């Protein structure tokens, strides 16, 4: 089995077109000749073979740890004191102690060091939790001077390993910066600190009759700072649009401790004076600066919403037609349009646990639609969603539709859709998750192509697909008994090439983190990637912010001592 594994590794290297020398942070180049691969596999790969790698660092054998400073006791003491003294004066209840603003015990650090998927484990020995932007700034200034690497962390719900250290970077948690600073009803804006959870922000807006412009399944844990840093999409993107459009201003701290006020707290929406720098930080995954506050634009909440679940006999063109018609007739009322395929529905039915799937029978595709209702619909009149569904079912009577009658039923239908990631996790030993953006004509064809490829390579695997079809966002999951690496080398980079050929994106909303850095190397044109690296070198010349992730700054004039 060892031989098979090694042969497989060699084959996978040879299959890939040469990328040129592999870049590492240390400035050294590592060749990809089979002998070297074998050698490194023997050194590091045995960990992967016999047991789960403990540390992300050993897993990523192509990267060498960057030559940052090592954290000393004196560093820890100074950083903790900087964080503590930046606490608000006079303190709200008791004076802040070292224990309030920092964590050093390995037991407590475990949850900060491990990401949500359980795939990535860091080795940080210090986590700092300031509650003011002054604290963040002084910490970063010190780390910049001492050349200490820092990983910013919010709710730690990311799916690409971007929120935990790779080696022993200091974790800077924004969780204690959690005040909702202002809600302006007239301008319909909300200003929050980065550590506010999405659920709290949403509730705050809802209580005042407004909607926060983002909705994710992880809303009770994920934080606004992280949402902005990853440019989160979510299930109501079709209604709210991108964060690039709804963020009116933000405050960020650069690697050297400079605090940038990029319009946070302002009420005006139009300001064409100079370059709009806040967009750089949205989606930068904490590699250009740490976001500490943000002002977002809210919209008035609809009087009510209706949720319907429809089972369509297919083919996928029917889903596309439903989407087109929904956009046309529901227009601004449309809040969400999600899809899942029959395999995903089978998963729900099988792993039940009390989930009643209210639709009987088998369908090729399922569509979950949420639509706002106009105020005071006279009881006889059909709501916009009912009119649309009536028309669609007349055109094809094989379609089955159910409509939720109260909030509990709506929540149940959404629960079906939102429980899919968790159910997939339990469906098999090896799970591969793909978050793809595709133009609709090639949307489901990609799923079929993946199945075909697995069949050709005689790999027994099941696919489960769902996603925000209204945004062209496909979540394709592959579940199998075969080892992950085997699946991965069969599907990657082939799948990403296919997606690129169709003009899509290999990471629609999950981001790059540490898992998908290859997408940048392969997917972006060299001059574009070069420019990204120059931005990174400009804003973080020492490369201390969230290193080893996103854009590698090794090549673009970044110099480190």
């Amino acid at each position, binding site marked *: 089995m060892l031989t098979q594994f090694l042969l497989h590794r060699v084959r996978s290297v040879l299959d890939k077109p040469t990328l040129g020398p592999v870049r590492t942070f240390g400035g050294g180049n590592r060749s990809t000749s089979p002998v070297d691969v074998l050698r490194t596999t023997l050194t590091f790969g045995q960990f992967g073979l016999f047991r789960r790698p403990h540390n992300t660092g050993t897993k990523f054998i192509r990267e060498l740890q960057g030559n940052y400073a090592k954290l000393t006791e004196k560093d820890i003491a100074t950083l903790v004191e900087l964080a503590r003294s930046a606490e608000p004066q006079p303190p709200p209840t008791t004076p802040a102690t070292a224990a309030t603003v920092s964590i050093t015990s390995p037991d407590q650090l475990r949850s900060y060091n491990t990401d949500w998927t359980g795939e990535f484990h860091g080795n940080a020995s210090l986590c700092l939790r300031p509650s003011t932007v002054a604290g963040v700034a002084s910490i970063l200034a010190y780390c910049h001077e001492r050349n200490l690497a820092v990983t910013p962390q919010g709710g730690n719900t990311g799916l690409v390993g971007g929120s935990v250290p790779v080696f022993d970077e200091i974790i800077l948690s924004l969780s204690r910066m959690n005040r909702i600073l202002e809600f302006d009803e007239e301008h319909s804006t909300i200003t929050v600190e980065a550590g506010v959870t999405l659920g709290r922000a949403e509730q705050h807006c809802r209580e005042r*009759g407004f909607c926060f412009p983002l909705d994710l399944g992880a809303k009770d844990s994920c934080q606004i700072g992280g949402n902005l840093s990853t440019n989160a999409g979510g299930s109501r993107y079709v209604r709210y649009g991108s964060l690039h459009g709804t963020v009116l201003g933000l405050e960020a701290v650069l690697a050297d401790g400079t605090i940038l006020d990029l319009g946070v707290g302002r009420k005006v929406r139009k300001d064409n004076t100079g370059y709009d720098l806040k967009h750089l930080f949205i989606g930068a995954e904490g590699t250009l600066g740490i976001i500490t506050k943000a002002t977002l634009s809210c919209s008035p909440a609809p*009087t*009510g919403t209706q949720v*319907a679940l429809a089972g369509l006999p297919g083919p996928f063109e029917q889903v596309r037609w439903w989407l087109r018609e929904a956009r046309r007739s529901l227009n601004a009322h449309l809040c969400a349009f999600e899809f899942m395929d029959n395999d995903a529905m089978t998963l729900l039915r099988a792993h039940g646990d009390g989930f*009643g799937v*209210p639709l009987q029978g088998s369908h090729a595709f399922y569509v979950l639609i949420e639509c706002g209702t106009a105020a005071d619909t006279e*009881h*006889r009149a*059909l709501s916009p969603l*009912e009119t649309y*569904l*009536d028309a669609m*079912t007349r055109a094809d009577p094989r379609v*089955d*539709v*159910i*409509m*939720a*009658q*109260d*909030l*509990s*039923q709506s*929540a149940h239908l959404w629960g079906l859709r939102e429980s899919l990631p968790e159910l997939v996790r339990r469906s098999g030993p090896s799970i591969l998750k793909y978050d793809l953006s595709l133009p609709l004509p090639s949307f489901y064809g990609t799923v079929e192509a993946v199945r075909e490829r697995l069949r050709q390579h005689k790999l027994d695997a099941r696919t489960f697909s769902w996603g925000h079809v209204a945004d062209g966002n496909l979540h394709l999951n592959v579940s199998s008994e075969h080892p992950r690496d085997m699946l991965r080398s069969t599907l990657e980079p082939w799948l990403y090439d296919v997606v690129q050929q169709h003009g899509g994106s290999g990471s629609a909303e999950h981001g790059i983190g540490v898992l998908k850095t290859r997408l940048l190397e392969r997917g972006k044109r060299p001059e574009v990637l070069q420019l990204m690296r120059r931005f990174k070198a400009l804003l973080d010349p020492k490369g201390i912010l969230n290193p080893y992730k996103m854009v590698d700054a090794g090549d673009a004039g970044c110099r480190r001592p």
Partner: protein
Amino acid sequence: MPPPCFRVLVGVKRVVDYAVKVRITPDHSGVDTANLKTSMNPFCELAVEAAVQLRERLGPERVPEIVAASVGPTACQETLRTALAMGVDRAVLVNTDAAPVSDSKAGSALQPEPLDVARTLAALQSRLQSNLILLGKQAIDDDSNQTGQLLAGILNWSQGTFLSKIEAEKEQDLLQVDREVDEGIERLRLRLPSVLTCDLRLNKPRYITLPNLMRAKTKPIETLSTSDLGVALRTYWQIVRVDEPPARRQVTMLKTVDELVAKLQQLGVLDRA
């Protein structure tokens, strides 16, 4: 002799949706219900589902008609639409919008109280000649748990309350029911006519399919007023004050008996040995 028919009347109430977090008005006179999502009382949903399932089990010859009724403002029509979409044949709204309410004082309940609802349903029963009335065990806004019992008293019918099972015996006008009581499950045999109130474990209300929803839009809803039925609405109780329940005190989990003893001694419940 043909087996007896069940002429079913189901009472449904429109309440603030179960999942909505409500707030007390600043003057503590009640709950602020303005602009909140409303839907059918969850226990009434169980009653409607029970009626529809009864027909599915016994057939339309034995359950020729199921009527849903609601006593409240015009907006209750949306609740009746839901009942129609679940399978009820027709609906009656006893509209209280224009009904004069005597003795109305500030702080009194703005909706008809259980005794008046029971009287109204009794009057409706005599019009419809129903012999089986299904209700939810209580409404989630006032939690009164009175209407079913009062109605049975007014009509002098048998009653089965807090039901978790309903079975109709073949060829007889008898029902076998299970009641959820403090001591466990009580099994009763009731002779029609009967008033039944439904509890959580009775069934799981169905989701409404689109064709049924569309059909419901065309089914008739008859509107009557309380005076048509000869009922005068009155206020019997006055709400003095509404407060939130006291905040839950922190819960400490104890691991050993020693800890428990020490804690109880600390609280002065146990004497120190």
